[in-house]
């Protein structure tokens, strides 16, 4: 099986890797590029733990082939913090204890960031629908929703 050479941009950096055409983008990120923040929960697009942005669109990286990333831009959880400075969503997740085991957290953070970029003041209902494809078996979701609402308020410049 001949591998295909892929050039793509991940978190602003141009990267190259060789991919088996059957390999998912998730596997390429984790195994070819060492970016293990994106997780594999189900591998079938149900759980959202592998959420990334592909040319700005929120997708499950398990449902994208690595070879499809050719010439595109990919944003993963690794690009979210600015050095050691957490993104407000990340900080609010810590403050609200919106995670326990943490396995779903990278995907939920990437998905929540995508939401806030297109809607800076989402309602609780809008957040719950937007995140319906991100499963969490620990928190019961309430803390996650509150953390997202609190982060949105801070990003809007409102006192929490």
């Amino acid at each position: 099986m001949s591998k295909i050479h892929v050039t793509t941009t991940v978190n602003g950096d141009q990267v190259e890797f060789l991919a088996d055409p059957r390999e998912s983008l998730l596997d390429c990120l984790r195994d070819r590029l060492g970016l293990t923040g994106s997780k594999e929960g189900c591998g079938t697009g149900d759980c959202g733990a592998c959420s990334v942005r592909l040319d700005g669109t929120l997708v499950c990286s398990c449902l994208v082939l690595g070879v499809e990333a050719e010439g595109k831009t990919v944003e993963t959880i690794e690009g979210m913090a600015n050095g050691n400075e957490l993104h407000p969503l990340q900080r609010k997740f810590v403050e609200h204890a919106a995670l326990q085991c943490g396995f779903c957290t990278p995907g939920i953070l990437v998905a929540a960031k995508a939401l806030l970029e297109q809607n800076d003041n989402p309602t609780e209902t809008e957040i719950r629908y937007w995140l319906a494809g991100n499963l969490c078996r620990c928190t019961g979701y309430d803390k996650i929703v509150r953390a997202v609402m609190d982060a949105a308020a801070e990003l809007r410049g409102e006192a929490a």
Partner: protein
Amino acid sequence: MRYHTPSTFEDAARLAAEASGITRFLAGGTDVLVQMRAGAVIPDDLIDLKKIPGVSEIAQTEEGGWRIGIAVPGARLGAHAGLCADWPGVVEGMELVGSTQVQGRATLTGNLCNGSPAADSVPGLVAAGATVEISGPSGLRSAPVEDIPAGPGKTTLQPGEVISAILLPPRGTAGGDAYQRFIPRTEMDIAVVGCAISLTLDGNSIASARVALGAVAPTVLLVPEAAAAITGTTLDDDALAALTTAVEAACTPISDKRGTAEFRTEVAGVLARRVAKIAYARAKGAEA
């Protein structure tokens, strides 16, 4: 597995026609990659259609209808004001498919070609009178959407044929459409029953209608008898009762873990009444 990225539908059709093993076309990948992952389908040739110019575009046709590229994901349909204004029932059907993440990739054409009788976007297309443009070894042909599904997981497309666009007719004035499904929760589930209706009005009277049902037969159904039951009426109680009778008569569902045949048949009638009222209100100018 060989991965192909043709730049025209002619090349895509030729690749498929020449392939001897298992062939799959790739657009959004939300079904194909799941089947690959499960080992259910391991293609010998995977033909990615997304490098073909125009496949990600939604364009108004000269007649005033819409041409939807085969790689346009659900999220883009919902963000398109003109399409949502003309065909809200088509858009709301597609938007029920999967999560935000799936909406970023899943396409109308893929939902159709996956061949599920419960596909949420297909009844809306059938009710709208949508057609597909098909590229094949002998050139282009077109077919009504309802002619594509052949049974669960099967289509009437021939080897070497590939859908190259979905075409919606002009909405015209005083028209409306709607889709609803029943699921036992609020999100992220497969339709137990789905119903789409598109109709046009002449004054208060229904001038024409198309009624489509999902998940109550081996394929999505177009039900002319149900359309006839409300055509010429003002959707009064008698018309709604006749609609219910015609819809229930068309149902031949299976019983499975999501619902019994009797339950599906009854719910189909309930949904048809609700959907007809919404389509009627939209034809009267109600906001989707």
